């Protein structure tokens, strides 16, 4: 097990992504963060706080459950079984700039599912993808717009993002 990011580095990575996002925003734009359950949700909340600070404005934040949009629901070898949880987006995404947030970008399949789930909720002005860790291994033509950390990870290894809110401490490790 190798630690690739510690608490401070995670915090800095999120702050840097927030800075880049703000730099790219058109004037007067209305922006919101949407995190993919479950770690993406927490990173989205932290990112939204940073964005709110930098913009001196409210940045709404929501949570997306992508289970119903997964492309492996009918494949038999699902262990453990995917669990449906709630999507909690308490604002309209219509005409907003949506920053879609996940912990790790790997195959791109979650992102594909998340995009389909999002557009069933409305029509955003545009969607950008922000991920804390990016690693090679894409199976879909998808890339991130904002990356906290590019990890060089061997095939077969797992990038595990642990966060205070869900795991008791902030760290990113390769297992």
């Amino acid at each position, binding site marked *: 097990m190798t630690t690739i990011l510690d608490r401070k580095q995670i915090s800095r990575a999120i702050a840097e992504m927030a800075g880049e996002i703000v730099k790219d925003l058109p004037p007067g734009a209305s922006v919101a963060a949407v995190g993919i359950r479950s770690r993406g949700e927490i990173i989205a909340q932290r990112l939204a706080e940073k964005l709110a600070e930098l913009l001196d404005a409210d940045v709404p934040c929501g949570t997306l459950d992508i289970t119903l949009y997964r492309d492996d629901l009918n494949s038999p070898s*699902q262990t*453990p079984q*995917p669990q449906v949880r709630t999507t909690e987006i308490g604002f309209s995404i219509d005409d907003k700039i949506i920053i879609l947030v996940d912990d790790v970008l790997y195959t791109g399949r979650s992102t594909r599912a998340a995009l389909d789930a999002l557009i*069933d*909720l409305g029509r955003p002005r545009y969607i950008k993808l922000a991920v804390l860790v990016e690693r090679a291994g894409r199976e879909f033509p998808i890339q991130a717009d904002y990356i906290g950390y590019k990890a060089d990870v061997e095939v077969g290894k797992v990038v595990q993002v642990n966060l205070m809110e869900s795991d008791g401490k902030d760290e990113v490790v390769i297992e």
Partner: protein
Amino acid sequence: MTQKRKAMEFDWQYKHLLGLRDLSAEHIDFILDTAEGFEQISTRSVKKAPPLRGKVVVNLFFEDSTRTRNSFALAASRLSADVIEFTKKDSSVSKGETLLDTARNLESMGVDIVVIRHSAAGAPKLLSRSINACVVNAGDGYCEHPTQGLLDVYTIRKHKGTLEGLKIAIVGDIAHSRVARSDMWAMTKLGAEVTFVAPPTLMPAEVGKLPVKFSYSLDEVIDRVDVINMLRIQFERLGGNPFPSVREYSHYFGLTVERMKKAKSDILVMHPGPINRGLEMESEVADGRNSVILDQVRNGIAVRMAVLFLVNQAAAQQNV
């Protein structure tokens, strides 16, 4: 997310939902938790999600139903399944085809999930042993109506937080009610105390063996219950004269404005529908602030979506 997920608590392994009697509290809670995730689909602009895309659900109804049949049809189509409606009247059943032949024929057409309502108790079980498709019981005889039981406890949980320790009265034609039975199993398993209230002629003969209390007087229990579920008098099932007159029944067992004055102020008033207004319940009560009858209908769709989703998941894992 696309990496291996951390171990989750539960694997749903039943490709049929035949009744609630054989499910544990954990199973029931799991279905209710899953239903939470489906609720918002019905409120957003695109009222559809794709998990049953390419699957075929047949509504195989040998008894009349509007609410349950439409609710299952909506649930299935909100999961992107295709739905075939099959009713007794305009099918080969009226030409003498047996239940199993009908079901096997439907299966040959590639049906994945059969939702069945039948006047014979045990028909769904028989079906589940004979065909490969998933079977969901939408009411069999006087035996069970599991999705109604689930949507009732879901509605109670939404309003009260938990069923643990709640006192619940189920009132009316208990003897002919599969809803009462499914409610009883779900509610008692989740920790509620259930009292059946009915005149002796509408109380099931075996009530002493069931995990419930019972009473022949609504006035005795009305002041101490947190939830009251008023069953419909099912005139179509009643033989003989179970009570002297409709007016007398209503006088002793109807939920009237007058009787509601004795109830707890936060009592939940439920009814599985369709209501005989003025008989089991006065209109002012059915439309009053304690009534959650329309919530039940709404929640029924989310609960049925969860059930269809879960049986399909179990089937996907087993059909390796």
